[in-house]
């Protein structure tokens, strides 16, 4: 009985999954201390170095700024500097630190005799710091330093210098106050200019650029034009030797320009350029073997209508029968319409596309115009044939003339000098086009019937075509003109294309022209390219010809 009441007490070990497992890693205290000590020493060394570097006074601020704001130089094809970054010194005065104002003024008068000292005296009486001379010469700066006046404070600044001022303004473009390119080459090659140590070489020639610009300035004196432009390009490589657009601006002044007249007329300006398109029409016919230079066009009307719009000849005395070559030489509108109609809409359109007339051109600056888009039709074909109702940039027109005259090789206009082996040449037109068109363009200049006699400069074999167009303003044709002349020379072995454009020239009744016969002729009431732009182009070629003949 007692057994039954017995309680069996069984003690069991409490089993659990959580148990302590002894690590195999046996790290002794000494080892941990040693590692800690090593890290401590290293951190002390680095910290002390960091403190030392931090305590150093930075007196080479200018070098840092120079590195940040550095831009490589721009040079022309002969290695002449067109743009360079230099460190300049600005000097100012803190009036609070001036001890003897009269003495300081006398000393300043000796160093800068031409300054307005009334204003300087007023500023000296004030309390604000003011600049005495920005971009001071070393000579003057040394004299100022020798005065030993504590109130004279100098600061060094990075400046971009353009020694030719406005000569290359539309090519080089501007930079802003933070040294970023905002237009022209400065913007397009901003990254390269910041990263490269070597200067970027352009294709332009400073001497030629200057001579062309001078003649364009003279054109304003003669024809009172609103603006003007010229482009000289190597016909075989597309290298731009000169690109001038007037008005231009002094790059050193860094002015904000909002006036649209300051647009780059060569690359950005999109114009209806008139009869210069007749060359393209005839070239399209030669390319497609549709006409020959002596193909006769008979019974040419003096006026025709297309969808109610009048198309007429500018000169009613033109014969009714003309050959294809004579149509171009005498600049017949109706004749060009007939040639274009023979070519046909599709072939004509394809030809213009091949020459790159209708699409935006790739160039080395961002200021490039977009040719106006339009819907093709029979009337558009007719008007386009003589350059009416079709607009493009002068740069693209010069490119098209180059291809037509250089044997049919495509070129890419460029401002950056490249090695000749890197220039790719692709043939896009037949040889015959140049062989047929160049002698005809020569006759436009050399024969009496032609419209460009003033450009017949002996020795240079000038060939070319004139274009007189009414300027379109806000979609409406005005009486103002855009007069253009595109020339190729020497025509027997073309090397250069020169395009000259005058924006809104006015006839000059007082100007004395010298005709090819040597006779003098006073006064002109004709506001055509032949009497305005060709004259200027002739003068340009006369001046730059010797350089081109001897140097290129």
């Amino acid at each position, binding site marked *: 009985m007692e057994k039954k009441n017995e309680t069996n007490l069984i003690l069991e070990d409490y089993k659990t999954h959580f148990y302590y497992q002894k690590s195999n890693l046996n790290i002794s205290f000494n080892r941990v201390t040693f590692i800690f000590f090593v890290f401590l020493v290293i951190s002390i060394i680095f910290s002390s170095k960091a403190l030392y570097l931090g305590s150093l006074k930075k007196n080479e601020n200018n070098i840092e700024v120079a590195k940040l704001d550095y831009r490589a130089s721009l040079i022309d094809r002969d290695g002449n500097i067109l743009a360079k970054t230099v460190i300049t010194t600005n000097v100012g005065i803190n009036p609070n630190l001036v001890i003897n104002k009269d003495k300081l003024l006398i000393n300043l008068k000796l160093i800068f005799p031409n300054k307005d000292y009334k204003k300087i005296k007023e500023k000296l009486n004030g309390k604000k710091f003011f600049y005495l001379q920005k971009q001071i010469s070393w000579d003057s700066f040394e004299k100022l330093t020798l005065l030993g006046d504590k109130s004279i404070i100098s600061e060094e600044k990075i400046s971009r210098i353009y020694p030719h001022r406005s000569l290359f303004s539309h090519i080089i473009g501007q930079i802003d106050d933070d040294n970023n390119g905002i237009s022209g080459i400065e913007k397009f090659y901003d990254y390269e200019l910041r990263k490269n140590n070597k200067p970027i070489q352009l294709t332009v020639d400073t001497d030629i650029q200057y001579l062309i610009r001078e003649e364009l300035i003279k054109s304003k004196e003669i024809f009172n034009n609103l603006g003007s432009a010229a482009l000289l390009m190597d016909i075989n490589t597309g290298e731009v030797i000169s690109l001038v657009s007037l008005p231009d601006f002094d790059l050193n002044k860094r002015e904000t320009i909002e006036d649209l007249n300051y647009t780059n007329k060569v690359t950005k300006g999109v114009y209806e350029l008139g009869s210069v398109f007749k060359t393209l029409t005839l070239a399209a016919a030669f390319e497609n073997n549709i006409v020959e230079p002596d193909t006769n066009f008979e019974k040419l009307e003096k006026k025709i209508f297309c969808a109610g719009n009048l198309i007429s000849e500018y000169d009613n005395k033109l014969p009714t029968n003309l050959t294809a070559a004579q149509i171009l030489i005498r600049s017949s509108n109706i004749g060009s319409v007939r040639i274009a109609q023979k070519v046909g809409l599709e072939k004509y359109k394809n030809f213009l596309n091949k020459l790159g007339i209708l699409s935006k051109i790739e160039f080395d600056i961002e200021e490039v115009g977009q040719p106006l888009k339009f819907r093709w039709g029979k009337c558009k074909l007719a008007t386009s044939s003589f350059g009416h109702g079709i607009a493009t940039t002068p740069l693209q027109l010069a490119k098209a003339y180059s291809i037509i005259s250089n044997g049919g090789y495509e070129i890419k206009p460029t401002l950056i000098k490249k090695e000749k082996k890197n220039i790719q040449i692709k043939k896009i037109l037949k040889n015959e086009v140049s062989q047929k068109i160049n002698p005809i363009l020569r006759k436009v200049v050399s024969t009496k019937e032609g419209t460009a006699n003033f450009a017949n400069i002996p020795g240079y*074999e000038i060939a070319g075509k004139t274009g007189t167009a009414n300027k379109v303003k806000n979609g409406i044709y005005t009486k103002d003109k855009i007069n253009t002349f595109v020339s190729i020379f020497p025509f027997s072995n073309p090397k250069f294309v020169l395009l000259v454009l005058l924006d809104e020239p006015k006839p000059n009744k007082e100007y004395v022209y010298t005709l090819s016969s040597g006779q003098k002729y006073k006064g002109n009431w004709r506001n055509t390219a032949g009497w305005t732009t060709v004259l200027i182009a002739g003068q340009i070629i006369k001046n730059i010809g010797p350089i081109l003949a001897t140097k290129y």
Partner: protein
Amino acid sequence: MKRIVLIFSILILILATTVTKHSTKKIDKEIFNLKEDIRFLTDQYELVLLDYNYLSSPKKLLEYQQKFFENELVPVDIQNLNQIKFNNKKVFIKKLIENSEN
């Protein structure tokens, strides 16, 4: 034995690297100094060139011409200019501009 060879070769490599680095340190320093000199001289050259370009710019040259040689420099007809060429000790005189129309 392998272990000794390995340690020995590592030691030689370390030693060789140290010696090489030490010997090239001087050359590195010289190269750096030369580069700095070139940079400085290039900068000086460009500044002198800048002055030269400004003083001999076409604008300045025409100003000098008007000032000093107003009546002395006369334009020459380019058609009258000839060029002399030497070939195998023979002298050839050629027109500078060949006119295909004549």
